[in-house]
């Protein structure tokens, strides 16, 4: 409790004749509301199924696995994303990279994300040293069964094709290479 010396008492301002007459003020209010009523152009609602929302590029939706210029998975199976994941929804099985791939030792044999367990926090994206995993702006994620919602490598790579084709690449990809190990995706 503040002491009485610290307290000031404020009186609200007195009402003038206009306010005391009620009517002019009410007319004023009515003018404002009727203006809004008649301004058809200023409707803010998006009619969702017909009108898709325009999401910011840093939106965190469905994951995708990025490909490099040769169409290979960028992922080097380092397990950083699986380790960072607070929901433990990423399951990777690593295998030795083919002989022809000189730049890496391992590649993911399987790469599975349980989209139902995922909390879309984006920490896998932050952890990835080669910008292989990214969250896209795809938000309407649905499935008929739990099995359908477990995305494997092919599915995640197809999300890459889909979003690149639609021109809705996430903000990281748009901003170019981020680390020494990463490279810009094909344009």
């Amino acid at each position: 409790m503040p002491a009485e010396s610290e307290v000031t008492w404020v009186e609200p301002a007195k009402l003038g004749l206009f306010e005391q007459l009620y009517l002019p003020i009410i007319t004023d209010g009515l003018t404002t509301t009727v203006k809004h009523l008649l301004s058809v152009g200023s409707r803010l609602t998006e009619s969702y199924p017909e009108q898709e929302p325009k999401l910011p590029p840093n939106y965190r939706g469905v994951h995708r696995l990025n490909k490099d210029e040769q169409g290979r998975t960028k992922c080097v199976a380092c397990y950083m994303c699986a380790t960072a994941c607070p929901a433990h929804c990423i399951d990777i099985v690593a295998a030795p990279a083919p002989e022809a791939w000189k730049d890496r030792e391992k590649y993911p044999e399987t790469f599975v994300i349980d989209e139902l367990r995922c909390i879309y926090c984006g920490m896998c994206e932050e952890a990835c040293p080669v910008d292989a995993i990214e969250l896209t702006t795809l938000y309407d994620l649905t499935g008929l069964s739990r099995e359908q919602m477990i995305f494997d490598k092919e599915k995640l790579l197809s999300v890459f094709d889909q979003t690149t084709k639609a021109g809705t690449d996430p903000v990281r990809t748009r901003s170019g290479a981020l680390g020494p190990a990463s490279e810009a995706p094909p344009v």
Partner: protein
Amino acid sequence: MPEFDWLTLGIVIFGVIAVVMPTVGYLTLSERKISAWMQDRFGPNRVGPLGLLQPLADGGKFFLKEAPIPRHVDKLFFLMAPAASMCTALVALAVVPWGPTQPPVQLVATVTEAGTPAPTADAVAKFEEQVVANKKEFKGVILPGLDIGILYVFAVGSLAVYGIILGGWASDNKYSLLGCLRSSAQIISYEIPLGMSIVGVLLFTGTLNMEGMIDWQAKHGWFIAFQPLAFLLFMTSVYAECNRLPFDLPEAEQELVGGYLTEYGSLNFGMFMIGEYTHMITTSLLMTVVFCGGWSLFGLENLMADSVIWNGVIKSGIILAKAGFFLVMYQLVRWTIPRFRFDQLMDLAWKVMIPLSILHLLAAMLVREFNLNNWVLTGVSVALFLSAGVLGVLFGKGPNNTPRRRVVKRQPELAAR
């Protein structure tokens, strides 16, 4: 005493109900649409084209949902309350004109005081002729020629509060009870200016019959011009009577959950809603009939006076358009003015509206007594209104008597920054 042909009466009642019920439904839609547009939204637009079938969907849902009756309620009164609310609203419609009307035939005195000439046989014959002619005319009102007219509407309309009180009491719930108590206090307070504002009109028309009131206004001019203050008081009290914003304290969601509606669901709730919106329709028609000249519109209504059908269509159109304007006004005001606090509500009724209505009535009596020009009353109305404002400025206790607020002084070093 008017006589009624039961078949015609039945058809007219059926017709009126068949129009009023869908209107109530579409009023809920327009309420939602207008609120949405005012808030830069679209409003319901999924059911049918432009959402026009929304009321049907709402009604179907009301019918098909389970009607929950909590175990702790007083079952009889709990079920009676919505019925009371809806019935009183519908019954009040019986004498309100919605189309062309004729004033009831002036009675001829058969017993006269000594010294005044007795009515001739001619006068009696003429009277009976007029009665027969009057019977043949089409009248846009369920019970034409009812002499207590507006008194009946007020009597039945005030019964609507029983629905609220019964509902709140029978629900056996603190929120419901608080809501219904507020409502009873509010409606009883606003009943006084409501009745008082009408008396000034009755002094001039000399009849309580609504057809007579329209007739007077068609001949002399609308009361909204002669008694603007009475109209203002009437409109404000009617908003309070209908429990519409800014006077919707009985169901103030923020304080009372749903007020007296808290325990109601499905069609029980729907009946309360129907009652409320029917009340709105009735009062809109009342404002039209009592203050805005009913079907009269500067002589335009008589363009097709010889054709019965066109006469009916034009006059009904005019009166319904005016009532429609007031209905839209209800909704515009609802989404413009915030709710009153309860003490402000009581202040407005007892300290402002009741004194004003009494003074206005006094002025009307003086004008009538000394046979002054009707426009004198307009001036008095405006003067009373302005002087109320001036008095408010001179002697008002700040904006709406808000309590003084404590504010902690900022520390000097913080203030210096």
